[in-house]
């Protein structure tokens, strides 16, 4: 009976942890805020539907074909999956104890772009009925490549250096994602509306960087005094290919 209680509690704890995953880490009370939008100018390349017919167990999970995500746009020329983070001026912080979760589901990576901190635990799940090989193509950190057949336990790992790491599955070549390993706890990934929000910034002068997997990085300086809120927008020049 005690055991059952324990497992229920443990399950609840795991559920809670996984719910926090995709949100920006909890900021300390107070502090400044930087919000804004990431947009593009010009004509970006059209995303293509992915043919998963070679993997029927994944294909049947999607009523409409999954689109490629390397330039995900929204109404009003907004850009999704852009990581906005403090690249300079941050005092630094230790990694939170909770792990971030990365899922392979329907032969997609969820989320497509996963920001995490240096030394933070990373848990990789395979929810599919098929084998995946998870192959983060790290250059600064060690590069590894592991098989994860259906029903395998999660792979626990972490990265010790900041890096944008492309992730791929060689068995399913359409699967592409990113681990964005950062030295800061102040980061945000733009949603469908291109918006981001960095909260809990102590007063100071910061360099803000926006990173898009195809278009690279942009930086802006921002100075925060007291608990003020600042608005900073980024605009990338879209490439037609």
């Amino acid at each position: 009976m005690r055991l059952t209680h324990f497992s229920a509690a443990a399950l609840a704890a795991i559920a809670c942890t996984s719910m926090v995953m995709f949100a920006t880490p909890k900021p300390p009370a107070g502090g400044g805020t930087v919000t804004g939008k990431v947009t593009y100018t010009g004509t970006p390349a059209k995303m293509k539907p992915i043919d998963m017919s070679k993997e029927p167990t994944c294909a049947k999970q999607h009523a409409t074909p999954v689109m490629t995500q390397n330039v995900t746009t929204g109404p009003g020329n907004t850009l999704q999956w852009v990581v906005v983070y403090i690249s300079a001026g941050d005092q630094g912080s230790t990694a939170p104890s909770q792990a971030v979760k990365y899922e392979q589901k329907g032969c997609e990576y969820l989320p497509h772009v996963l920001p995490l901190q240096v030394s933070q635990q990373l848990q990789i799940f395979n929810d599919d009925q098929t084998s995946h090989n998870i192959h983060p193509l790290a250059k600064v950190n060690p590069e590894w490549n592991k098989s994860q057949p259906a029903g395998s336990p999660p792979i626990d790992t972490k990265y010790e250096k900041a890096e944008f790491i492309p992730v791929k599955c060689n068995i399913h070549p359409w699967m592409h994602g990113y681990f964005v390993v950062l030295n800061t706890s102040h980061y945000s990934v733009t949603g469908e509306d291109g918006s981001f929000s960095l909260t809990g910034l102590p007063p100071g002068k910061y360099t803000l960087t926006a990173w898009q997997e195809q278009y690279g990085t942009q930086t802006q300086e921002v100075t925060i005094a007291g608990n003020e809120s600042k608005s900073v927008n980024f605009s990338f020049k879209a490439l037609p290919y």
Partner: protein
Amino acid sequence: MISSKFVATFALGSIALLTFGAAPATAQSHVNSPDPLLGAPSVNTEESHIGTLTGHAEEGKHLYRRYCIGCHGPDGDGNGMNAQWIDPKPRDFTEATFKCRSTPTGTLPTDQDLYNAITRGFINTNMPSWKPLTEQQRADLVAFIKTWSPRWAKEKPGDVLVIPAEPPVTIESILHGRELFQKLECWKCHGPAGHGDGPSAATLTDSKDNPIRPYNFSTGTRFKCGATNQDIYRIFMTGVDGTPMPSFHDTLTGNDPWDLVHFLRTLQISYPSKELDLWQGYVASHGKDIKPIGPDSAAGAQ
């Protein structure tokens, strides 16, 4: 027989020496040109330990200049003057990512692993066997190769894979290995019959985005990382880093790896083995009961 084999190896080695030695020799003939190894660290205190041998990087540097620089380049990044003609590309030592390791994926190999790679060479590539060099020279080269990446100063090689004693080759072991080949989806790259023609094969690239082919078991006898059953065991357990071939260390337990080794031998139809004999006998008597490997079999299993 032995002597003719020896002569063949020696002859091959000599050709390699000539071909690969030629480039740096010409480079050195320009008396006033700067040291082609200026990119290398100036202090080479790195050592290697192979059994009772100790290799010294400073010695290895001279050997590298003579034998390796043509392909692996003056900066150790695999961009030597011959590299443009070579596929697969020469190893980039600055990344410290190595294919043939006894250590887990993502970790540094042991000195012995590097020594074995230099000694064995890599089949289906331009990297010859460097057996014509003395053991000491090969050890010195291992020490020098480790000066190209700062990882060697900061990290230790991973724990060496422990390979348990090989169980007897039985048809049960082969059949279980075959199930694993289906279940782990090895066939998606290596093909249902191991011809290297699985559905994902044509899409594969290495970590530098160069196209790469999965191993074709039907034409091969040796592998890049060795030729024995123990070598096969080690290859899929530790993975071939820098390529699409992942590590199966976390997924295979008990005798599973050995069963898979025994099955893989049956795919090597041009390499006589006990496994192949046993399998061919089984196919002759039970051919009708054998389900094909591949997507159809997966559908049938559900």
